């Protein structure tokens, strides 16, 4: 594997507290050195002057749809899109077909990724068999096979007793439990956030309290079990408040926010356009502001895309019949820079941490840092680059995004995985 020298970039590595203009030398797929005026020697040189050189971004929440839904996305296409979004690692949620609820499926995903993925793929195992919420999945065996967390994402674990046992089991295997917080009785039949816009459009609502009651219950259960608990795609003011309180108590509780939940509110939806339909739904302006505030104050640990591809025909239906979810890899950094950094809410090192050391710490990955010896996963981005998102050029197999045609200020420039450049902006 050839040497690579990334020269003169602004190196931001939150894990080691570094933020300075420096060179990064990569050798044998690992970070060899970080410092000023490193000798190039035989190395290929990449000029990063004016650019940010960061640890490779980690997306801890994505749906790659393989096995089972390859018409919408495959590990190969999803990972290409991830690379084009600056991600070097992607966590694959288990709601495939079959569900990743046993080590055979876990190993299958890892095996497929080793052959077809241009970025690292870390499977997340199901909490319950078939993600049906009834009996526990083979959590320990999946961990041994390579799963980095458990989640029934797409659905909540509704039964409190099952959730309690899952938390106890995951604790014993040192895995975080990632919950999709949605009380199915409160959200039943809902297609968008319950509020003024849903009432006006005659669409059934998903109330904010459908998320809040599960977060409240789970925090009690997680404290009881002493387990690591993570709230996926947090979207409401009250949930952010409760996670903040749990953290203040010292509980090992974390949460992630998606780029869409901080950049769009329910009232921004183009009426009945399914590219605005996802779970949790786009919330009120007040909720959006509270999640952004939660990021600024440190309550939110990670930005995750919840990349959820659906084939065009599935999204070209009556709004209430369309599946939930939008793709998100390629727009994540642009949205985060716009909403969080250019608006002055957070610094660049803090933004980088949300994409790197934040998720790495939750999942206990040996990545998300530029420390010498670490795997050479590097994301190079330009916080000022002006570009326009064109869905016709997406690497994803699906095109369900509300951001087509949006102009961004800032975006990825190159993505390096284990020392190899896997994507570079044209």
């Amino acid at each position, binding site marked *: 594997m050839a040497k690579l020298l990334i020269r003169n970039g602004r190196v931001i590595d939150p894990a080691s507290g570094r933020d300075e203009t420096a060179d990064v030398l990569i050798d044998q797929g690992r970070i060899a050195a970080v410092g000023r005026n490193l000798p190039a020697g035989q190395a290929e040189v990449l000029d990063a002057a004016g650019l940010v050189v960061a640890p490779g971004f980690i997306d801890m929440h994505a749906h790659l749809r393989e096995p089972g839904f390859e018409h919408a996305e495959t590990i190969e296409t999803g990972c290409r899109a991830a690379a084009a979004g600056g991600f070097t690692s992607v966590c694959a949620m288990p709601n495939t077909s079959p569900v990743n609820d046993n080590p055979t499926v876990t190993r299958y995903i890892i095996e497929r990724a080793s052959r077809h993925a241009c970025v690292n793929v870390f499977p997340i195992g199901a909490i319950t068999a078939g993600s049906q919420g009834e009996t526990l999945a083979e959590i320990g065996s999946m961990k041994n096979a390579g799963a980095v967390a458990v989640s029934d994402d797409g659905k909540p674990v509704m039964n409190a007793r099952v959730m309690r046992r899952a938390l106890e089991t995951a604790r014993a295997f040192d895995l975080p439990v990632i919950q999709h917080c949605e009380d199915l009785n409160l959200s039943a039949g809902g297609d968008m956030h319950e509020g003024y816009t849903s*009432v006006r459009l005659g669409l059934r609502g998903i109330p904010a309290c459908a998320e809040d009651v599960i977060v409240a219950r789970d925090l009690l259960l997680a404290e009881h079990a002493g387990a690591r608990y993570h709230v996926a795609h947090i979207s409401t003011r009250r949930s952010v408040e409760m996670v903040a309180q749990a953290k203040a108590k010292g509980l090992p509780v974390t949460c992630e926010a998606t780029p869409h939940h901080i950049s769009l509110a329910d009232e921004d939806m183009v*009426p009945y356009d399914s590219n605005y339909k996802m779970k949790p739904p786009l919330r009120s302006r007040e909720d959006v502001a509270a999640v952004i505030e939660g990021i600024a104050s440190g309550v939110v640990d990670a930005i995750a895309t919840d990349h959820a591809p659906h084939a065009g025909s599935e999204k*070209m239906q*009556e709004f209430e019949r369309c599946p939930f979810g939008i793709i998100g890899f390629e727009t994540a950094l642009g949205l985060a820079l716009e909403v969080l950094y250019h608006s002055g809410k957070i610094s660049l090192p803090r933004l980088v941490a949300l994409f790197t050391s934040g998720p790495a710490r939750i999942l206990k990955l040996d990545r998300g840092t530029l420390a010498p010896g670490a795997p050479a996963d590097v994301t190079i981005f330009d916080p000022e680059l002006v570009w326009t998102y064109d869905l016709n050029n997406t690497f994803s197999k699906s095109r369900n995004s509300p951001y087509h045609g949006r102009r961004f200020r800032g975006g990825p420039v190159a993505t390096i995985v284990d020392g190899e450049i896997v994507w570079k902006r044209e």
Partner: protein
Amino acid sequence: MPAGLLGIEELSRGEIEAILARARDFQPLGNHTFKRLDLLKGKMIVNLFYEASTRTRTSFEIAAKRLGADAISITAAGSSVSKGESLVDTLNTLAAMRPDAIVMRHSASGAPHFLARHLPTPIINAGDGTHEHPTQALLDARTILDHRPSLEGLRVAIIGDIVHSRVARSNIHLLSKFGVDIVLCGPAPLLPPEMARIAPGVTLTHNIGEAIRGADVIMMLRVQLERQHEAAFPAGEYFQFYGLRLEHLELAKPGAIVMHPGPINRGREIASEVADSQVSVILNQVENGVAVRMAVLERVLG
């Protein structure tokens, strides 16, 4: 977007006034028996009904025929829809036959709006889910104007399952544009507070007496049991608290009228004595349905 009619919300007051004035020309007044007109001769209208409907579908058919247009009606049951064809595919197929307009009723809110973004054919919304039913609001306004000189300054009570009612939404948008004082009344789970914000001039109450006091017009809504996914209100006591009975009429303004979009549930939301009384204008509404839909078809196709 092609020039169809998707809802009242986006119409201007002037456009509504023009439709209502034109509908008056089409009313069968006095002993004037209506003759077939040739205004839309050679035009082809497809009525596509994804939901059961008797009066709206018949009314659109008669309206089209009286204007000299050719109208064909397709219902979901017995068509390719029941073979699993998607909405987009069905509409693309129909559009390829080049109709001049598609009149559409669908159980999903926004279905006609979604199609209007993808099809060149004008679409007339004949009721979409729990969203809008624009021609119903127009015929209701026409009916009120047959009994009152103008809409300005009237007090209109709309009573029943508001949140699931497309009739309520369209009426609220229409009446609000004319400065009507609108009181919405229903059980709390069927009358969310956000309803007060959807148009100016709207207030809410859970007390039927309060709603009717001083009202010029009482609009009763059908209790949409088929649209409720849960028991949002104890059905057994609905009539006791929200059913319109003769004694309520004493609270209204003298000469107040009672309306209902039909089909009525006697003894559930309205007592038989009220439905059959002099104050009920329910059959006028049906009559005006044809006239208003003629005006709408003429506006879209003429």
